[in-house]
């Protein structure tokens, strides 16, 4: 492990599912303390890409390295010490107590026959406390609401304390205030551990709020766009990505994008000009339209 290596390095990655190529020649480097957000329409392959980055799915071509170590050199346990993965949904068949579900995050840090020590118990308790879940600790996970279950799953990741967080829709099922609070907490935790975060978000206001880099994944064109959030999170790019005219909303210090009224485009057409309420920094876009 090299301290100077990027937490996640992706080089010339091609991901295929069956015959379908989801992305081709994807390269990027996520450094410590960076937050990358994957955005794209339904079915573009965001979750598949994230599973691939997590080392949970095989890929066609290219290289993935975590902190300089190629994925192939790490076994399942070593992988789990470096990266945490939040699945898009939690399905609980067996009853389990919330505290135990969070304590499960300590699994990769224990040897085969070791039992959870006070350190692990403290880590789980701290994780619960940071997400304000202490009152839920003795509950059965199957009795939780979807939003509560989501926060418990996030607490499990905090207890795991990895250097790379891969989150598939961490804000799903959460109310607006909880979304901000939960993501703030996770990102602060990541920051403390010099970790990098790569997450899939559907809520564009959260993307503009948290992303410093984005990956725009368009399953049809195969070429994902990667780059700075400020450059890529614009009405123009997002209109092209989702195939619908997106307009910019600004309020307070944050902005978001919403589809214009009933303006669905067929895919692969030039996006129409966003209405004039678009952000003023969309200069290029406005030039073309005038």
């Amino acid at each position, binding site marked *: 492990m090299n301290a100077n290596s990027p937490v996640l390095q992706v080089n010339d990655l091609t991901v295929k599912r069956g015959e379908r190529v989801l992305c081709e020649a994807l390269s990027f480097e996520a450094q410590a*303390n*960076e937050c990358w957000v994957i955005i794209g329409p339904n079915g573009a392959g965001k979750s598949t890409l994230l599973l691939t980055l*997590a080392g*949970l*799915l*095989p890929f066609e071509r290219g290289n993935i390295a975590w902190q300089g170590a190629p994925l192939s050199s790490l*076994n*399942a*346990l070593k*992988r*789990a*010490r470096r*990266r*945490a*993965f939040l*699945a898009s949904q*939690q*399905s*609980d*068949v*067996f*009853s*389990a*107590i919330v*505290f*135990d579900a969070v304590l*499960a*995050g300590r*699994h*990769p840090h*224990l040897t*085969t*026959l070791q*039992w959870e020590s006070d*350190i692990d*118990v*403290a*880590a*789980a*308790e*701290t994780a*619960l*406390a940071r997400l304000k879940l*202490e009152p839920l*600790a*003795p509950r059965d996970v199957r009795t939780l609401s979807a939003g509560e279950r989501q926060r418990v799953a996030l607490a499990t990741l905090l207890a*795991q304390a990895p250097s790379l967080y891969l989150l598939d829709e961490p804000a799903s099922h959460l109310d607006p205030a909880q979304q*901000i609070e939960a993501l*703030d907490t996770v*990102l*602060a*935790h*990541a*920051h*403390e551990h010099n970790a990098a*975060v790569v997450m899939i978000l559907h809520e564009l206001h959260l993307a503009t709020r*948290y992303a*410093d880099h984005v990956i725009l994944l368009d399953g049809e064109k195969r070429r994902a766009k990667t780059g700075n959030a400020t450059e890529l999170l614009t009405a123009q790019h997002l209109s092209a990505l989702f195939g619908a005219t997106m307009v910019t909303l600004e309020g307070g*210090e*944050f902005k978001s994008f919403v589809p214009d009224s009933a303006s669905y485009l067929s895919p692969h057409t030039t996006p129409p000009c966003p209405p004039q309420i678009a952000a003023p920094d969309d200069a290029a876009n406005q030039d073309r339209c005038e």
Partner: protein
Amino acid sequence: MFTRAYYKRGTEKPDSLYNHHETFFLLTDTVPPVASSAFRQRRRRAWLVLSAMAALALAVLLLALLTGSVQITLPELWASGRGNNDPALAIIRDLRLPRALAAFACGGLLALAGAMMQLLLRNPLADPYVLGVSGGAAVGALLSWLIVLPWLQTPLAVLGALLSALLVWFGARRRSESSWGMENAPRLLLTGVVVAAGWGALIVLLLSLAPDAQLRSALTWLMGDLSGVMMPWTALAALLVTLALIWPQARNLNQLAFGSVHAEALGVPLKRTQAWLYGLAALATAAAVVTAGCLPFVGLIVPHALRLLLGNDQRVLLPACVLGGGAFLTLADTAARVLVAPQALPTGVLTALIGVPVFLFLLRRA
């Protein structure tokens, strides 16, 4: 760049969170340890219950030795243990002891296999027989009677069980080998159910061909019966080996209970663990079925009942299944011997008759 959100909002500086971070590993007492003390209490209680169950298992084994058509008291047992010619001792040594040990071993094996199958398939309704191992064994055993070579019963039953296990495992494997065996459970379950249905048809076919004289003993075997058991050692050895091999995996199995993606993301070598789980569960089931036939119900309800009592930590649950399943079946078998003595009921009838009300009671209470 993470901090952007905080700075923009200007209310929460991350500094406060840094301070919090220092508590992460060191100062556990800055966080009121409510949850963790409850956790320790639960763990203590689990060990307590486990020790109580061990004592109970011993008591039940003793009871099985002492009760029957010839009643023996504890002092008599103790006294006869010294002088070797006592006929009472002969009854115990040659009849009751092997039968009680076999009952304990088979009960333990079936409960253990049931707990493992429920985890593997992530389905609380799974039991050791759901994937057809018992059907394969039954067809082998029936075949040995049909060709009138009863000494072939055990080898053919073992062969049938293993054949069935391999058929299901390789039948359920996906052609494209992806690294995650993830959510393979429905496929495995479906393959198993179909194969089990096939064995069921073969069983009926063999029964219809069997001479009437053998029909009765065949039916008793299918329902599960311990009356003929003389050799408990194979089953006991299988029980110890299975527990010794699966117990070190117990924390991996805990992760599997939350789902296979979750487990693999937390560092469980998924394919290896699943193959191990399946192989050992099939082996345990085969050892039990070959010894005592298809005893119903033990493998389904004992793991459930113990999960309700002890929680779902496999490090506690798996040994508990051995003790609980063993004690349960020994008790049921003793009842089968004694209830309508001198007639003996098939053991399998008693497991269901005791198991159903006990389980319904536990389920209502939970």
